């Protein structure tokens, strides 16, 4: 669940923008913009870090609990029996760090059970376990 890696990427990107801006608009302006963007990036990464620290999940006997959010705190309880399918995705940045996102789909559009930044092995384990549990507890509509 740690995703400090993604944070570093953001910082690198932000600093890069600053340098490009500095080359095009003069050294002084470039320095100021680098300082500002680095500060912004750090604040942003701090927010991100807090956000990802707050992301946690728990596999219980009959349901999965996913809690997330710092400003708006959300907690979802999704029974395994209600799961329609599990989705595992990995974007290019996530792949770079061998991470993936597991998402649980139910028939309700609102139920929000997404767990980003899992180690690939953990994601695969979770996927298999959820599928297995979902199969054995499946309930109709």
């Amino acid at each position, binding site marked *: 669940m740690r995703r400090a890696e993604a944070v570093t990427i953001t910082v690198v990107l932000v600093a890069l923008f600053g340098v490009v801006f500095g080359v095009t608009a003069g050294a002084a302006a470039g320095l100021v913009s680098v300082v500002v963007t680095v500060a912004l990036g750090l604040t942003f990464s701090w927010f991100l870090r807090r956000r990802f620290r707050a992301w946690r999940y728990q596999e219980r006997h009959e349901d999965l609990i996913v809690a997330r959010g710092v400003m*708006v705190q959300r907690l979802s309880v999704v029974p395994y029996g209600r799961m329609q399918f599990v989705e595992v995705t990995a974007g290019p940045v996530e792949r770079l760090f061998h991470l993936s996102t597991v998402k649980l789909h*139910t*028939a309700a559009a609102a139920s929000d059970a997404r767990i980003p930044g899992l180690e690939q092995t953990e994601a695969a384990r979770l996927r298999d376990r959820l599928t297995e549990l979902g199969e054995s507890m499946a309930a109709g509509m």
Partner: protein
Amino acid sequence: MTDAGPAPPPPDEGWSRLHPLTPIARVGRLAPALVLLLVVSNVHSKAENGTAETDYLIAITLISAVYGYIHWMVTRWRLEGDTLRIETGLIRKDSRRLPLARIQAVDIVRPFLARLLGVSELRIRLAGSGSTDGKLAYLSEAQAAELRLLLLAGHVDTEAPVSSNTGLPMASVDTGRLLASVFLSLITIIVIGTVAVLAVLDQFEPKTAAAVAGVLAVYLLSAATVIWRRLSGQYAFIAVEAPEGVRIRRGLLQTISETVPYGRIQAVRQVEPLLWRPFGWCRLEVDVAGATGRNQRGEGTSVVRKAILPVGSQQDSWHLLARLLGAPDPERTAPPGRARLKAPLSFHFLSAGHDTTHAVCVTGRINRATTWVPLEKTQSIRRVQGPLQRPLGLATVHVDVAGKRARAEFRDREIEEADQLVADLTALSRRARQRDRTPVPAAGSDAAPSGWYPDPAGRHEQRYWHEGRWTEHVANGGRRTSDAATPAP
């Protein structure tokens, strides 16, 4: 394809065709567009010679008539044991087999011209898909009704005789009340208000009025269409009780009859708009699952919201609700007074509560909406706490059911209460689900403990099993009645 089924009947026997008037009824669907084209071309041709355009119209009509006739020639259907087979298409052949056991609903639709010709369209929906899977347009009215009964009788779920159109009427809407209710809706008032303002403006500033009218014309027209749809769609609304669900018949020009199966109801909503409240009117809507296939992507899009009572009194609504969900009336409580700071407007009506089988909540200020959710349909339970709620020590608990919009919201509750609610509702919905899928105890074995189980005869939702035999006690949606048990086979 497997060869396991019974031998199919000889390939060229038992086919039926659609009604011979089908091509005319199909061309009739184009009639409004054609008339519109004719009017437009006539207006244009005042200046020039417009005979060519009229010729085009005649050609279009002829071509569609010929196409309709060919379509009728190549379309045929027949019942093959437990499947209905429909074949159509001259160039691109289309052959469908609809297993009777999977038929979810059979709707009869009668567009205006078809009604004049005495024919109707049969739409067949299968479990596992939201849309129409099979369509027979058109059959004679008697044939459509007969085939509908035949198709539904092949249903494995209901052993009880399937009702014809004569069921127990549950609710109906008379024309006067429908007119009044549509008139008292926000959109109508806006349209009438705008027209009135324009008329007044026309007295003083004719030029400005004409310009504004030109700009607003499109919006006014589309609003008028919406109003007209409401009026014609819900005209002569009647809901009839049937063993398989509530049957609805409605429509002015096009008659639609559809079925809402009890078991597929995800949520029931009673809406009381501000302007209806002085009359004590309300609207009752249900969210019905069209069934969702596994591995099917899409976020529960197959749930349809249907008005089961477009406008009616509280008693009508309560009567219907009793039939749909067994009139659950859990005790409702209001959120703590400090929630007024977070929700100054909607606080007035906010309340929510739950019992062991249902959750109910009231939200909204202008449109007061009461939502009932059967806990066995719960998809997930969420607790959300926003930055405004945290300092006030409040949190909202959502009970989600299938679909995009349907949910019960316990809005702005005490934090301890919210935590307790999440735990309680999770446990209760788990129990409700288990009750739903407990296997039927085999008759004769007294091993199964006494309790409520799915009715083996299929007439009711549940039947009480006591000391090795079925009793006469049955329950539908939590409401208990009695009906003699079927003797064991």
